[in-house]
């Protein structure tokens, strides 16, 4: 039983990070119907900002977190304005290819600065508590609670503020809402800022939990989070969170009860089956395409 609970904790930690990244994919998709494939690399930049401010400026946890979030938010807004906005009327494939290009640019830009893996020094006191065989580390607590807090803030913004209402409206109907006087460009920028900021926060937490970071760290994690978003129903915020936790739990539990070599294979087979049963994801609703 303790073994199961311990693995459950591991799953919560991994799932929280997937969920935070998946939110970025889903928010951008919800509002622009575009998949921001550079999002995994935004996540990587978040981890690198954390590395820079902690190593060279010696900042403690909270300011480092704030700087990572702000830095990646800005990056998201700049990328949207410079690379995606000019293509908003272009075929959707062009925007996706641009996103892939931005991702490769970010990876290689970071790589060009230095090819060596970087180590983020421990910024919070690492203590572990043991309760009858169950070990909980301070880091686990911080990651899980902070992720939940960020998700709650996001929920509040989307459901209870004017900006959130505008976001929901644009995702509902892109053509009519601008006619109502909603400043579409600003709302899109804010969406990018929030989505990327969550990615940055995830990057920083990932960097703390797995403190060796390299420019390619965002690729696989980004794909997995994207899959989590699709499984949850892309475009749906609650879906992304559920998808993230499901993916984290499947990965950990498969490795825990089967030979660990089968982890990705089994985890992704399960997700494929889930998608066959519910093609729009768990929370997604089918949208009829008008011809």
């Amino acid at each position, binding site marked *: 039983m303790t073994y199961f609970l311990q*693995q459950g904790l*591991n799953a919560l930690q991994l799932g929280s990070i997937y969920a935070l990244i998946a939110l970025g994919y889903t928010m951008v998709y919800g509002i622009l119907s575009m998949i921001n494939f550079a999002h995994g690399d935004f996540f990587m930049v978040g981890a690198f900002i954390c590395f820079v401010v902690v190593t060279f400026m010696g900042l403690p946890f909270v300011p480092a977190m704030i700087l990572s979030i702000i830095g990646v938010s800005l990056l998201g807004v700049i990328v949207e304005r410079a690379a995606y906005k000019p293509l908003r009327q272009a075929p959707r494939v062009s925007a996706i290819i641009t996103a892939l290009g931005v991702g490769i640019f970010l990876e290689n830009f970071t790589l060009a600065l230095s090819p*060596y*893996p970087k180590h983020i*020094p421990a910024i919070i006191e690492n203590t572990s508590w043991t309760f009858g065989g169950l070990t909980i580390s301070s880091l686990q607590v911080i990651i899980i609670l902070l992720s939940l807090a960020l998700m709650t803030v996001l929920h509040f913004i989307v459901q209870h503020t004017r900006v959130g209402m505008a976001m929901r409206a644009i995702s509902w109907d892109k053509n009519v809402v601008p006619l109502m006087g909603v400043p579409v460009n600003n709302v899109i920028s804010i969406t990018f800022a929030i989505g990327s900021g969550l990615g940055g926060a995830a990057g920083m937490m990932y960097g703390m939990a*797995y403190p060796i970071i390299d420019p*390619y760290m965002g690729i696989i994690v980004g794909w997995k989070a994207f899959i989590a978003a699709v499984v949850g129903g892309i475009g749906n915020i609650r879906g992304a969170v559920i998808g993230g936790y499901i993916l984290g739990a499947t990965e950990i539990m*498969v490795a825990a009860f089967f030979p660990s*070599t089968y982890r990705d294979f089994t985890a992704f087979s399960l997700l494929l089956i889930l998608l066959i049963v519910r093609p729009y994801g768990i929370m997604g609703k089918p949208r009829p395409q008008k011809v």
Partner: protein
Amino acid sequence: MKKVLFLTVAACIAGLVLLGCQKSDDSAIRIGLISELTGDIPAVGASCKNAAEMAVKEINDAGGIDIGGKKYKVELFIEDSASKPDQAASAAQKLITQKNVIAIIGPNSSSNAIPASEIAESSKVVLITPWSTNPKTTLDAKTSAPKKYIFRAAFIDPFQGRVVAKFAMDNIKAKKAAVLYDVASDYNKGIAEFFKQTFEEKGGKIVAFESYTTNDKDFSAQLTKIKNAAPDVIFLPNYYNEVPLQVQQAHRLGIKVPFIGSDSWGSQDMIKLCGKDCEGYYFSTHYSAESATPVVKKFIEAYKKAYDGKVPDDVAALTYDSFGLLKQALAGAGKLDRQSVRDAMAKIPNYDGVTGKMQFKEGSGDPIKSAVILQIQDGKFVWFADAQP
């Protein structure tokens, strides 16, 4: 207008092509180096390149290599394998066909060295890998007979696996061991299996044999499983960029048993990345920088002088020895062609290098040599024991 533009572009391209073809010094010996300069293990690539450049400079400063009564200088062609098997193979192809090298040193990791060795073997060019320890590097994939043109400066994994397993039983007094290894990499997989085999033969028990794939960062599921199996020691035959993550996550899960490793731990970056978490753990490797023999002292002095005080790691020492071996083969060949170099290389019976005495048996590219066990103490690799073959 268009025509002018077209002509200009064409002229530029032609110019670039001609520049690329520019013949360099014809009387020089052309040696290729394939190294992991970027990718997962750049510290390995950098050490290899540093030692190679130093070895070439030493040879050239001494006037070159005497072949059949004439002195030849050495010219080095460096290619990056980016730590990718396919790129290592194409680098070997490029060095052989375009750069027309007489022999190749590198790549270092086994997953890179195996494909590169296939190319070198089929093109009949000598390839000496400094650091690859997987037996497959020098063996034919189909017949398991030794390859004719492939040599190495390192010992092989069956020996290393034996050394570590013996150390775990005799020194750590472990009866139950756990292994966590990268199943997607030839090196890690090979040595994990040899360790398991020896440990079980000696009466020990492997209570957990867990794997992951390259680039994984989360090992919590596997480590929780290992913790549940309650081993006396955990063997991590993985590269220095992953071991710190594994050790730190294990500590966070409350695992307190000692960890042991293999020669992939031996990079100075390991200490930088792992910090206090790896303090006191042991690993097997090729040489100790504390060794007091005159050859080692001279090498370390020269390396420190050339690279602002950096202590050469095992990759640097092995690369230096690979050049030493090749130099001896070239001098013994008498002629400057690929086949003569291979024949001379195969005839070297033993070589006294920085990493100790190597003995080559006729028909095999694997040296017989000893290993050392080092301990990590106060952020330094400290000699602990020697292990004879």
